[in-house]
């Protein structure tokens, strides 16, 4: 078995999850120019709710794994609406960047603390719906779960892309992203589009939470670093470039699995964060984003 191949494969699986979270950042940034600093907590809540439905932590299991996923997605969407309504909408109205940064941070720590009080502070295992015996692909052992992660992530992004291209509502979302004022003139309710983008953003985070939970552990503090690393991916991919996040995610995923293997798992979060610092210090528009001309 080729160890490099192995690292590559797990890196890709991890990277796809980052891409899904990063996609959530892109979605809100495109429509409103804002980001949810509690994106990691949205992910954590998704995983926790999934665990409660499908596991036995809160008197469950209530239903099986496959029915749990749409419920988690629904929960994620609602959570996004709450974030948009409490933390973002008032700040957009008063044009206060400081306002939405601080209030999404505040909501993030509230969510985390509430989760700690509901589910406790300890990490819990998340049941995997698929057999845990690895499959051999290209000289590497790949867990069926990892395969599902890649397929699930791609499927979700494909669906969103189809929605944006094919339906008039999706076109309205894209139009709002490129020019909010002009979209309003077309009769598009841009406030609603922003709410929708937050629902989509938290939904993708919750989905990512359910996908990643069986690979890692589930706990109230699982989201923080994941949210930050996904932001690194969003930046590397460019906040305005759709496909960039997949490349950025895979890059980071591989960087992490190799660091974890060759250095120490304690350092595995470092490359992503350093990459974030470097990209922002050198090319803030990302590897795939366009540089904007500053107007005076």
């Amino acid at each position, binding site marked *: 078995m080729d160890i490099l191949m192995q690292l590559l494969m797990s890196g890709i699986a991890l990277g796809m999850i980052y891409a899904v979270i990063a996609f959530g950042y892109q979605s809100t940034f495109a429509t409103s120019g804002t980001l949810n600093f509690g994106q990691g907590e949205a992910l954590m809540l998704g995983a926790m709710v999934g665990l409660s439905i499908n596991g036995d932590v809160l008197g469950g299991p209530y239903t099986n794994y496959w029915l749990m996923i749409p419920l988690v997605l629904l929960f994620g969407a609602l959570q996004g609406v709450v974030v948009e309504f409490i933390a973002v909408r008032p700040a957009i109205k008063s044009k206060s960047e400081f306002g939405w940064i601080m209030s999404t941070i*505040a909501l993030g720590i509230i969510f985390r603390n509430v989760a700690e009080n509901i589910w406790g502070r300890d990490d819990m295992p998340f049941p995997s719906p698929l057999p845990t015996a690895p499959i051999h692909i290209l000289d590497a052992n790949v867990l069926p779960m990892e395969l599902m992660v890649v397929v699930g992530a791609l499927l979700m992004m494909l669906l969103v892309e189809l929605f944006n291209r094919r339906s008039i509502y999706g076109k309205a979302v894209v139009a709002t992203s490129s020019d909010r004022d002009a979209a309003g003139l077309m009769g598009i309710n841009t406030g609603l589009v922003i709410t929708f983008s937050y629902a989509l953003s938290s939904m993708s985070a919750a989905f990512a939470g359910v996908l990643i939970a069986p690979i890692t552990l589930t706990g109230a503090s699982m989201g923080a670093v994941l949210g930050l690393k996904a932001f690194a991916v969003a930046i590397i991919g460019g906040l305005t470039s759709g496909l960039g996040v997949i490349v950025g995610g895979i890059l980071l995923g591989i960087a992490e699995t190799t660091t974890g293997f060759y250095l120490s798992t304690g350092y595995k979060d470092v490359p992503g964060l350093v990459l974030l610092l470097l990209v922002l210090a050198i090319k803030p528009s990302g590897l795939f984003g366009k540089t904007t001309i*500053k107007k005076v």
Partner: protein
Amino acid sequence: MKAVRILGLLAIFVLLAILPRWIDNEYYVHQVVLIAIYAVLLFGLDIVVGYTGEVSLAHAGLFGIGAYAAGILNWKMGWPFYLAIPSSIFVTAAFGLLLALPALRVTGPYLAMVTLAFGTIAEILINEMDFLTNGPLGITIKKPALFGFILEEQHYYYVVVIVFLVAMLLVNRILKSHLGRAFEALRGSPVAADCMGVSVYRYKVFAFAISAGLAGLAGGMFTFNELYIAPNTFNFELTVLFLLALIMGGRKTRLGPVLGAAIVVLLPNVLNDIELFRYLAHIIAVGVALFVIRHVISGKRTFKPLVIPVVGAAALEWSAHKLQEMTDWRITIFGFLILFVVYYLQEGIIGWIRNVIGHYRPQWVGRALAIDKAGEGQVWAAPDHAVKKDGALLEARQILMQFGGLKALNQVDLAVTRGSIHGLIGPNGSGKSTMMNVLTGIYTPTEGSVVFNGSTISGDTPSAIALQGMARTFQNLQLFGEMTALENVLVGLHHTYKSNLADVMLNTPRYRREEAAARMRAASILRFVGLEAFMNEEARNLPYGRQRLLEIGRALGLNPALLLLDEPAAGLTSPEIKDLIEIIRKIREHGITVILIEHHMDVVMGISDVVSVLDFGQKISEGKPAAVQSDPKVIEAYLGGQAST
């Protein structure tokens, strides 16, 4: 007034001196020390958050670096606290410089994420590098000692209080000086700061370094107060706590951080006492009820603003009764406090108090600066730019400015004669403002060169160009909104200061002399542009026309050889335009060359010596106003499809 201040200070000193004896409880003395330590950190955080206007989520990390620097030096090398703590200032300031590098490229949410990443890396590294930091086990050190005398909690209290007072004094001096104004200008408008010769690059780095240094100082003192430090202390929650303390206490004040630090240190004690918490919940509920009653009585029909306070108070009452203890919900409460401050108390408690006082006694809270009246009328400094007497003052040669496929300027030549007023006109989108930005260094031209006063300036930074004697105003006003008119002009006069950080901190005669001279000149300039009455008014509160004049005043502070005015008459009323023309004439009489972009044809044609016309990025005509006005090409550009009608 001065006597009151001295008495007040004296009272504070006495209070601080007797506090430990008065409290006489080691735990509470420890808490007071912690408040002072947090306050020192918050002074630094305020420089970044309050003055330069960025959100820093790195300060827990910086605090941790400071704490560990002192801890390691003491634990591994046996350095005493009076050497270890100063060292942690320098170590942390160095990390602050590192953090400033990305800060130069990005702002706002990006920078917030960068600082968050920095803080997280710091936490991870402290945790992982156990050969240096002893890893998750943490470091335990002995009580600090001074020449063999062991400092107990109440002794160490005096050390911290003295450091705290000195830090407060020095930070206050820095922020009230030209350096503080430079930080504040970065927030108001980075572009304008650069064009006033205040290098954004330099002062951002500076602000982060000072801020980090203070975090390091606080961290060092923290280590010797706690005597045990572990990595998980310096986590994200602590960072959020610092931000809460700062915005709740009040940004851009010295008292705000002290108050904020007291709140976040003491609040957990309140939460531990569930009875006290319930009591607080009742008070808040009564307060909200009164608010609702007043709202209903006043006959307002909109109930939307009531929803959140009522729901909030109800939820608080409910949780106060439901929960048996609050400690676990501490963070949630901090979160709600942040939301509350962000939406209802944006200026913080101190800011709110100031606003209330200002409502009744405006003179008590104003930002008026004392000005020596002796040297009035010093609008024009001796020309200190080595201005040559002959030839063109400014020569732009074959300027090509390309944005993607668009040629905003296409091979434009522009020569401006010394002492003239040079008009620049053209339809919208013809490249006038682009030309302005090329000349002042905001854009680097794709091709071509700009020669100013005998030296090539294309490629220089805006601040370097400004310091060579080129000043400008902005079409979309770029004033430093939260600074007074006088302070705006003082930023323009930044170049007159030779004083450095040490001068400011020690309040040396040199610094005092320079400050007095600058204030005198700023006041004279304001009188010249007719803004004497608005001297201590915040720029954003001035009427639009006055704001335009203030931009000219600020540019004059730079003592320019060349002044670029970008649509100075836009939005002005007819009498204001007359005053403006008069001012421009006077500026020219004092030997300052003027480039004037303007759409009001009567203004341009009335006072320009030469007029150039741009259309589609090309110069289509140039000459005396009368000749340009009758040029068929110009008429075509302005009238457009006239031929078709």
